[in-house]
């Protein structure tokens, strides 16, 4: 299935866009999606850290991704 990953902060620079489409197997976890993203965008693994958010919640590595989920890549936050 195809998922759209929203990008913020430095992730926009790495993707070269504010979102990217990724092709992943049907029943995929957040960890698996991260691996696919790192393969496509090796600079991701050089970040201090990053998380995925699914439907506006931080996603644990074993969270399953479903069609229609809003997925975002969250590099280290620096608000305040």
């Amino acid at each position, binding site marked *: 299935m195809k998922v759209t990953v*929203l990008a*913020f*902060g*430095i992730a926009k*620079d790495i993707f070269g866009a504010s979102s990217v489409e990724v092709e992943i197997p049907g029943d995929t976890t957040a960890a698996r999606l991260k691996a696919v993203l790192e393969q496509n965008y090796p600079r991701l693994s*050089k*970040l*201090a850290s990053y998380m995925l*958010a699914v439907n*506006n*919640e*931080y996603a644990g590595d074993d969270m399953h991704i479903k069609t229609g989920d809003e997925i*975002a890549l*969250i*590099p*280290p*936050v*620096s*608000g*305040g």
Partner: protein
Amino acid sequence: MKTNIQLLTEPLNVQACVDWVISPGCGGIDVFIGTVRNQTKGRTVVKLDFEAYKPMAISEMNKITEQVFEQFPVEKVLIHHRTGTLQIGDIPVIIAVAAAHRDAAFSACRYIIDTLKQTVPIWKKEYFEDGEVWVGATP
């Protein structure tokens, strides 16, 4: 209403924030105001950009205020965060907490800014005279 959480693009208004939290049952208000510094580790800062993942930022700020009401005897909590381009001295964030007694106001205000900086999806890019950097993004 006990909480007031907003992401704004226009300048934040300290007086309006304090006016909102003042209430007759409260004896103490603590306010934290973040301001844009003119330097980071000795390098001159020219300006900052703040970007937010808005719906999630609001949701995470709501979680923080829920935790605050569970942990501290406070009456009113306000978090205003600005996004967009800010100059030196501009205010990216105002946190205001009103409580019957000052101890809770101080503790809650401190908890909010510390937690916000760890969990709320907002990103800051610093512009120097000779380059720019997303703060904290790389080791």
